[in-house]
């Protein structure tokens, strides 16, 4: 059980010690979704989604992406930035 705000502030705020966790220590690089080589299919504007494309189940957070819809010099990566 966490204490009340005023009690928390009454505790001595010891200076940072060796081994203390700083924000950057908790940061990780997210998984990367490799996009396909096909150019964006403008037929998606018309509602003719190719049946071969499916909602990628590995990009549930930043984008439920159909991963074959975009090309940008063939080297793009989209960060799968964690559930939000």
């Amino acid at each position, binding site marked *: 059980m966490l204490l009340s*705000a005023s009690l928390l*502030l009454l505790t001595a705020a010891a200076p940072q010690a060796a081994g203390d966790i700083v924000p950057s220590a908790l940061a990780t690089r*997210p*998984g990367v979704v490799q996009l396909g080589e096909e150019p964006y299919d403008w037929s998606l504007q018309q509602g003719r989604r190719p049946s071969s494309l499916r909602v990628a189940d590995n990009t549930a957070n930043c*984008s*439920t992406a159909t991963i074959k819809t975009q090309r940008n010099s063939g080297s793009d990566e989209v960060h799968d*930035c964690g559930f939000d």
Partner: protein
Amino acid sequence: MLLLLTNGIDGTADILVELCAARGVPVFRFNIDLWAQYRFAWTADGFVFRDPTGRSVDSGAIDAVLWRRPSLHETPEWEGGSPEDRAATEAELQTIVREIADWARGRGRLRLIDPAGSRRVGRLAQMRVARDFFRVPDWAVGWGVRWPAGRRMVKRLTAEPVGADHDRYIYVQSVESDRLAPEWPWLLQEIAEGDRDATVLYVHGRCFGFEMAHTRTELGVEDWRIRNVAHDDPWRPWMLPEGVADRIDAYMRRLGLRFGRLDFIAGGPELVFLEVNPNGQFGWLDDPEGWPLHTAVLDALLDPSSTIDGRAVTLEEG
């Protein structure tokens, strides 16, 4: 005409467009990452988009606008210009899209998703209000504090990337809280009781529940959001306990949200609320046989009662 504001790798938008085609609902999609391939003009009389196929939409023909994911941060980089020009351009593009949403809001045409939802109803407001409806684990935010000993969850108030290259994220994770450096601000939360993670997609009064097929013990985690590949884990439909749908509906109405994905911990003495994402993703939960979730979203989009009216919402009294 329905206008979707999104990006080129938004699979949910792909499916919504497909469903629109099947129903004969006219739709136009603006992918912000592919902005250079469109042509656009806006004057005092209104705006017009034209895409590379020659399709166009005039603002006067727009009945409803959906704010999906019109973000340049989650898409491949577009090409052209110096880094300075690109940065300046991206800021302008993001603002133009926000102005379109504001234009739609002012005319009662912005539906279902409030672009300002996450900012208006932040993590702390969500948890404070949720106490009127659900059990919520104790939480605290602060700095200048040596946190009490014990294992707790560290959450973030924003989803902003960290690091010089903005390529790392701080996911929800458990830590020994007395080891957190006291001079930094932290959001801590007690680890919730319960053995199974659950999520509910709320679409304008309707609730669609799902639960993780594996328990936390089986997954070896305190919280499924720890798992960077959690969406690869199997989820299954979850029958909400009696009365929960009504509580969710009342909670979302209090927050002034018509859409969101709420995360819970189930299997303990009580259902435990974790958070709500006012523009949460749901594509991986849907069934390709009929796309019931996407269909519910489209139904709501076409329903004028899902309009984001922008009136002041009283989250809390006093």
